[in-house]
């Protein structure tokens, strides 16, 4: 697609980009710490990834190949509109293939395929402060981070165990970064938390409404909070992906009709498609194919 000539490259003006770029460098120097930045209004509402878009716009260079996913899928509204936005205002190449992308902007998932050195993940973050639902005052949470006073978070996880018998937090599961800051990994399922740890890719987080940026340099230790007698666990499924048969991916539940029929399929559409193209077949692939005809 032809770059729209009436906008500056990647939409933002140069001064805004420099402001975000300076914040990103400080975020990298203090991994997991939330750097305030002067978030701009974007041509889409808060909650649609304005933080991630501003980070992507500030780091983008013309040679980049951009992939955008929403809940693992490349073809949902949010992903399609952000991809088209950058095609229009930056003229960059886009892709749906994880391995071809130099920058992957994501809402709520990390691709199943292992990320590589040189790749950059940009996360869209709604509430960057992991302590916010425990302590509403910014002045207090800031002090708690400064003093490394994180007992409250463990109390919350403990109350989960007291009430449910296990830690019931399933997404936005808090992590400790490089043994210092507690960080909200954005609403990724806790299934994806292990992928944050020691990742070869650079991971950047942007919260547009809350105006915070934070970062994980590659090869940074990221530990999901837990207790010795209640170790961190990820979700598991009893069945494989109905389409590609994968047993190692995060599955979405899809309702098939009004009689309660449901199927489980990979949330990462690129991973599922790649596997099916390679000849992997899931238990329901036949039935779905016939239903579509």
């Amino acid at each position, binding site marked *: 697609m032809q770059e729209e000539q009436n906008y500056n*490259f990647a939409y933002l003006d140069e001064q805004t980009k420099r402001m975000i770029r300076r914040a990103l460098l*400080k975020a990298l120097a*203090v*991994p997991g710490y939330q750097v*305030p930045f002067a978030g701009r209004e974007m041509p889409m509402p808060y909650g649609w990834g304005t933080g991630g878009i501003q980070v992507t716009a500030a780091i983008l*260079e013309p040679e980049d190949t951009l992939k955008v996913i929403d809940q693992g899928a490349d073809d949902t509204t949010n992903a399609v509109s952000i991809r088209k936005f950058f095609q229009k205002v930056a003229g960059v190449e886009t892709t749906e293939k994880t391995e071809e992308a130099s920058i992957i902007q994501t809402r709520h998932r990390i691709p199943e395929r292992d990320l590589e050195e040189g790749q950059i993940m940009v996360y869209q973050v709604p509430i960057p402060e992991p302590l916010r639902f425990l302590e509403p005052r910014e002045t207090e949470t800031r002090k708690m981070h400064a003093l490394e006073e994180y007992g409250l978070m463990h109390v919350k996880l403990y109350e989960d165990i007291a009430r449910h018998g296990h830690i019931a937090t399933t997404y936005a599961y808090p992590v400790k970064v490089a043994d210092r800051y507690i960080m909200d990994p954005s609403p990724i399922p806790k299934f994806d938390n292990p992928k944050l740890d020691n990742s070869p890719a650079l991971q950047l987080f942007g919260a547009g409404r809350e105006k915070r940026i934070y970062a994980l340099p590659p090869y940074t230790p990221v530990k999901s909070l837990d207790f010795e007698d209640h170790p961190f666990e990820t979700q598991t499924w009893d069945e494989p992906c109905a389409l590609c048969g994968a047993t190692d991916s995060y599955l979405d539940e899809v309702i098939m009709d009004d009689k309660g029929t449901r199927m489980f399929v990979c949330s990462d559409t690129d991973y599922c498609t790649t596997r099916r193209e390679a000849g992997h077949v899931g238990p329901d692939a036949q039935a779905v194919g016939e239903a579509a005809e």
Partner: protein
Amino acid sequence: MTVQELTPGFSDPVRDAAVSFRCLLNAMSRPGLVRALPVQPDCPAPFNAGATVIALSLLDADTTVWVADSLASPVVTAHIAFHTGAKPVATVGDAAFVFAPIAELPELLPQLSIGTPEYPDRAATLIALVDGFGGAEERRLSGPGIDGNTEMAPIGLNAAGWDVLAMNAGLFPLGVDTFFAGPSSVAALPRSTRISPNAA
């Protein structure tokens, strides 16, 4: 100072700033790894290309800057004022960006802003001008951004300089973040990087 004496900025400002920043982002995300500069702008003497690229891509009217006397030639001062508009400050501890030759690092670094416990991001960034990498004093680095450990030896960084940097790392999460700016490359040493004697 006449217009003719003013060194030009980036030849393609938007693109050059974008590729330069990616180089700096990559440097800061992988401490100790030396990154080749993607552009070679005209440099106001005695600034080298690394310092020029950092000034042009990160400074603007929202930032404060302090330049060491040994670097603050009329052409450097004019370059920063004209192309970036960054506010010069008299006290080095008030500056967000500090440019100095590597030889002045041991004396200078302890005077810089290290941020506050609530706002560690308000610490200074030191841009130390070096002749390159592969110097005599090598140290082993580890920490976020480093796969295991790595070695670094900016030319001109002496033992006293390394001691000051190691003390700075001990202040984490406070502390100064340093770019080593060479004539054709840059490397970064954020406060999060731990410094230990080289095993060799």
